[in-house]
Every structure is written in C-alpha cells, then in structure tokens.
C-alpha cells in the first residue's frame, strides 16, 4: 500500500464518518464542526488529485467563510430544547422508508456499473492547476462563466431588495 492509497482511505473514512456525525449529533454546534471536518477531508481528496486551486478555494469558501457564518447564526438564534418543533412520528417513518428506497435504487444502479477504464490520475496531471483552469474557463467555458454573472447579480439585487427597509 503506497502512501497515496493510505491517505485516500484515511480521508474517505474521515469524510463519510464525519458526514454521518453531522446528521447524528444532537447539538447543532457539533454538527457544524463535523461539517467543517467533512469539507477538510474532501479538500484533501482534491489535493490527492493535484487540484491545488480547488483545494484552497474549497477550504477558504466552504470551511472558512460559509461555515463560520453558520456558527454565528447558530449562536445568535436561541436553540432550546422547547424551541424544537414537534416531530411527527409517522413523518419520520415515511422519511426513513423513502430514503431507504432511494438508497436501494442507487446501490442497485451503481453495483452493476463497469468502472474499468475510469481511473483518476493521482499525484500528477495538470488539470487542476490554476493555469489550465484559467485557460479552460476563458475559452471553452466562457459562456457559462459569463452568464453565471447574471445569477450572482440577481442574488445581490435580491439581497439589497430584501435588506432595505
């Protein structure tokens, strides 16, 4: 087992384990902290794929900015046990059954798939480097890149509209 493989399995277990803990833990603050851990593990995967830019952006944007925002919001709102809404037992059961069915479908779909020929290039390749990314973004993907500016502009206008008195 090479060091890359050991790292890969370690990060995978870490990601899945902490993602499960996000749902399982009762305290929402713990959930957020486990979510940060999940993002770190996924960023580690990006690094293994030699996607350095994606790695750092994922850390800064998700683990940094968004998660800190989450923590602040959690601290500001009052989270008592009695503020918890009543949860319908049947709703829980229905949700579990539906989610279980979905899991079954996905497992059945992915089980038979022939993944030979799909191998990730690990520890090499220049697809994740900033230079390649920039060139692709401004040549092949320039239309979606520019059009998404409309999306962000409308989100900003919306924030102003909703925030104004």
């Amino acid at each position, binding site marked *: 087992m090479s060091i890359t493989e050991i790292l890969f399995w370690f990060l995978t277990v870490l990601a899945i384990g902490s993602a499960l803990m996000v749902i399982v833990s009762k305290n929402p603050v713990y959930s957020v902290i486990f979510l940060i851990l999940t993002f770190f593990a996924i960023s580690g995967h990006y690094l293994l794929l030699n996607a350095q830019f994606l790695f750092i952006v994922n850390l800064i944007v998700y683990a940094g900015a968004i998660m800190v925002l989450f923590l602040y919001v959690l601290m500001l709102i009052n989270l008592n046990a009695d503020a918890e809404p009543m949860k319908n037992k049947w709703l829980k059961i229905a949700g579990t059954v539906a989610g279980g069915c979905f899991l079954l479908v996905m497992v059945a779909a992915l089980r038979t*798939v*022939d993944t*030979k020929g799909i191998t990730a290039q690990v520890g090499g390749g220049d697809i994740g480097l900033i230079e390649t990314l920039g060139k692709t973004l401004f040549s*092949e993907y320039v239309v*979606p890149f520019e059009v998404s500016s*409309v999306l962000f502009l409308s989100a900003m206008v919306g924030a102003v*509209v909703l925030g104004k008195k």
Partner: protein
Amino acid sequence: MNAIIFSAVFGVLLMFSSFLFQNKSTQRNIAIVAIVLLLLANFAEQFGIWRIQVNNHGMLHFSSFGLLFNSIAIGITGLYFLLSGKDIEAIDSGSPADYYALIFFILCGVAVSSAYNSLLMLFIGIEIISIPLYILTGSDKRNLKSNEAALKYFLMGSFSTGIMLMGITLIYGAKATFNIDQITEMVHPGREAWFNAGLLLLLISLAFKVSAAPFHFWTPDVYDGAPTVFTSFMATIVKAAVFVAFIRLYATVFSASKYDWRLILSIIVAATLFIGNITAIFQQSVKRMLAYSSIAQAGFMLFALYAYNGISKEGLILYTFGYSVATVGIFAVLGRMKDYTFEGFNGLARTQPILAATTSIFLLSLAGIPLTIGFFSKYYMLAAAVKNGGHLWLVFFAILCAVVSVYYYFRVIQSMYFKTGDADTPFVTPLFKWTLVAMAAIVILLGLFPNLLLQYLYF
C-alpha cells in the same frame, strides 16, 4: 444570443434607474421601453435579420422553437407590465425598478433555458430563473404569509436544485461530458444504470420546478403567499420556460437511454391531472383555486413530453401562449379585487362589465371551450398522444379531468353574472381595460386560426 445579452443589459439598466429616477412611473416607462426593445432584438434573431455572434463552444443551440418561445415569453411579459405595472408599484417596500430588474434577469434565464445545449447551461438557466423568484415571492416584507412562502420556496427549491446537480453528476460520470449532442452519441454499455439513475433524479427535480403531482406540495402555499402580481408571473412565463427546457431534455437526453420513460411520465401526468383538478374544486379563494388549476394545466402540458412528436411541439407553443395570456389576464383582474374569495366576484358584471367579460373569456379558454385558444391547445396535446398510440386510457382520463375543471372555472363566471353583490374594484384606467380587451381578442383570434402563431415555428 440577442435575448440573453439584451435582457441582462436591460436588467442592469433598470437596477441603476432605481436610484437615478425617483419617479415610479418613469421607472415603469423605462421597463416598458426596454421590454419592447428586447422583443425587437429577439425578433431580429428569429427572422435572421441580425444577431450577435458569440463562439459559445457548443454550449448553446438556437432553434426556431426556442426563439419563438422567447418571443412569446417577452411579449407576454410586456403585456404583464402594461396590466400590472401599477400593482408592482403598490408593493410598499423597495422601488419598482428593482423588481423590474429581477424580472429582466428571469427573462435572461428563460432565454438560456430555451437554448441550452449543455447540462451546465441548463443548471445555470434554471438557477437564474429560480433565485430572483425566491426574492419576488418574499417581496411583501411586512406580510407574514409572504415571508413564509418565500422561505418555503427557497428551501424546497434549493433541495430540488441539489437533486438536479446529483443527477447531472451521475450523467457526467456515465458519459464523461455535459454536452447534449455528445451524450446522445456516446455509448458506454457498462454504465447504463448510472445514466438512468441520473436521468431519474433530473426528472424529479424538473417535475418539482413545473409542480407536477408528487412534487407539487409547495405550489399552493407559495402561489397563495406571494404578492398576486408575482404569482401571475411565476405561474405563467416561468412555468412555461421550465417546460420548454424539460421538453428539450426529454427529446434528446432521455431518448438516449434504453429505458422507456413513458410509464413513469404517464403516472406523473395522471396524478397531476387528478390532484390538481380535484383539489381545485374545494377551494374558497380564487387565488388558491388558480394555484391548483395551474397544477392541473401543468398536467396537460406534460402531455407534450409524454407524447413527444411534431404535433406536441406545436401544442406546447400554443399551450404556453394560451395559458399564459389567460392566466396573466385573470390574475391582473384578481389583483384589483378587494376580496379574493368567490363571493368577492359577486356582481362584477354589473359594476365592471368589461372586466367581467374579458375574465369570462380567459376562464373559458382555460377550461378549453371551443372558439378559444384553450380548446386548440388541449386538442393538439391530446392529438399528439393519440397519434403516438399506447396508453389511450390517459387521453380519456385527461378529457374527464378537463370536464371537471369546467366546474370551478364556471363558478367564477356564475359569481360574476348570476349573483347579486357589489364587487368593488378601485379606479380602473382605460389602458388596463384596453389591454385586457386586446388579450381577449388574441385568445379568440388564435382560437379560430392557431396557425397564425404556429407558422413561425417553420422559419
């Protein structure tokens, strides 16, 4: 490309005019001029006179179908501005130019989702449509119902976007490309199941966006809670745009899979028709009734997908046009009413005869009575399904549901003409009346000669 670029530019222009011009009617006039220019720009592209050339690397594909739909969407938005401009100004918070800017951004999303050739563009288009809508839903900030509707719409909408992204990811995993042409060509025998799972997730998320039956729960609350002006916009143009995106996806990507999607679709169609029509009967508020009726109409529009062929494409154009014109008209009248219940319409024929007459024509069109465009649009949809053959029970079921829908549409007409009361509307401008009359004339004219519209498909 004209529509995408110009709508974004006009959106920015209106954004600036919100603080450059304080006068509300100046802002409305700018919006109306901008929408006319946008329509002309799209006409120029549709008839091949002039277009902005952009090398889009196969991300966009402009067809006569998509361009005609753009013209329809822009034209109806123009009518909507003429009718409901005053109501947009009446929302107390914020300047109307901000809302106009958001509507122009939505039109940009409409143009993207009618022309996408890559799943990436589909995602961006649907998102540009959705995000301004969440804001418009919550624009009545002091109204608790509006806040609730916006939050609900936002949470559910983000969830369905997540499902869509998961589907696109799986499809990318199976085909190693986002491009629709390449997805249909590329065959990886071992990864068919992967592809189908991705398609299923895409189907779910788009069915959510058009409020088809098992995924329709958000619709009545959101349509009811949002300010009536914006309900009118999101129930018509936005819904139609998502349908246009959906039919393109169905015609290309879904047909590349070996699985027969018609069974799943027929269940969705039947459930949508049934739930929409049956629940609409029991509503006391006309606004909520229209929300359920829009679910029922979505069931008819889904026929275009279920039986995809040449007729259904014509039918979808006709249906979106007829449905949008009629619904925008009814919502504009509803926005002027003081009382949104059926009783609120009592005696409207006596106090406002023109409003009552045009509303009746729109309602008749929605019910699918001959001599209106609603009849031909329903006819084209069902004819497409009959031509394809198979599952004929669905056609009979749809006809039954159309008969049921006559009941709740005629209840409004009955209130207006045969019940005494004093339905009260504030002062109605002549412009409002004449726009309504023109729209009713369009409904009847196209009901007699649907080819006046459909001929533009074949340029």
